[in-house]
């Protein structure tokens, strides 16, 4: 691995796994110590590169789950059955192992407390990850920017950060969290039970006149649906930021 000295350019650096936290049956958070730091803004991502013994390399992008205020860098990775990188990260990687990282990447899908609000966050599945960095940044700064989160998951046990979100919302009257479960719901489930649609967004997104900054992240189909519905409801397209990931990410 080379650490080039070109100013302003990204370079690969090593991160060491200091802890691993199971988030859901398919999803783990990797807590990384990165000696030189990444210096990110909430919403950004990093590239992760793996090199096999024969020299074959594979790399993927993962959103950063931790806020800039944290000492460690946290990546939350969902295992995809046909994935080349995620099965290694979610099943093989152990505490003490090292990973090559390059970042921070992305200047568009980012939020700082100074950017203000209100905030409207819409997530599909692991699309919650960059939004969680924003929520954690907001909490770390004791911000009271009114914030609404709509989080779509397939099933109750597949809700990434379910408990962490509960804790954040319980301690903060300016944060509202709504869930929808699209495939299976517990018997006593009181949340939504369908894919996100315009009616659901009309319920939870707040009035367009509040001019929220919207961040939408998830599989392409969900992002397209949500972004168009928000614009149809009267939200300014300029204030609707999206980040999508490919079809194999599945539709929560």
């Amino acid at each position: 691995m080379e650490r080039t000295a070109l100013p302003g350019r990204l370079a690969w650096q090593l991160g060491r796994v200091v802890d691993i936290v199971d988030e859901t049956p398919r999803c783990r958070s990797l807590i990384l110590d990165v000696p030189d730091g990444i210096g990110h803004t909430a919403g950004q991502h990093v590239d992760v590169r793996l090199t096999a013994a024969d020299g074959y390399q594979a790399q993927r992008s993962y959103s950063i789950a931790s806020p800039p205020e944290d000492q460690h860098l946290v990546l939350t990775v969902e295992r995809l059955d046909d994935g080349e990188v995620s099965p290694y990260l979610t099943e093989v990687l152990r505490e003490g192992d090292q990973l090559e990282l390059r970042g921070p990447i992305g200047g568009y899908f980012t939020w700082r407390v100074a950017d203000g609000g209100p905030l409207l966050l819409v997530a599909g599945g692991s699309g919650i990850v960059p939004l969680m960095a924003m929520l954690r940044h907001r909490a770390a700064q004791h911000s009271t920017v009114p914030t609404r989160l709509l989080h779509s998951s397939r099933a109750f046990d597949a809700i990434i950060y379910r408990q962490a979100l509960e804790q954040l919302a319980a301690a903060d009257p300016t944060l509202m969290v709504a869930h929808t479960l699209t495939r299976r719901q517990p018997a006593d489930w009181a949340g939504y039970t369908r894919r996100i649609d315009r009616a659901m967004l009309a319920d939870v997104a707040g009035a367009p006149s509040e001019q929220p900054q919207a961040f939408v992240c998830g599989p392409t189909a969900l992002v397209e649906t949500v972004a168009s519905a928000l614009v149809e409801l009267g939200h300014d397209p300029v204030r609707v930021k999206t980040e999508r990931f490919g079809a194999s990410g599945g539709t929560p």
Partner: protein
Amino acid sequence: MTTDDHHLDGNAAGGVLGQIFAFEMTTAEVICAHCDAVGPIGAAVVYATAMGTIVRCRGCGEALIRIAHGPQRYWVDFSGTRLLQLAAAE
């Protein structure tokens, strides 16, 4: 976000572009040489493999930027980009 797929959004090219250019490239605006569509690289469609990265126009699907990765070098083909607007550092 996990992007374990070969068809990604333009942010996936931000890493390799950030290694080559000193500018934040996902917010750089490109004009497509094929269809004149304008947009940030982050909103384009990216196909990434171990061999290289292709950034395609979301409007017409033609290649805006092609980057091949070789030993100790990159080959960068911008023939599909008519104009690139970069935000200079303050």
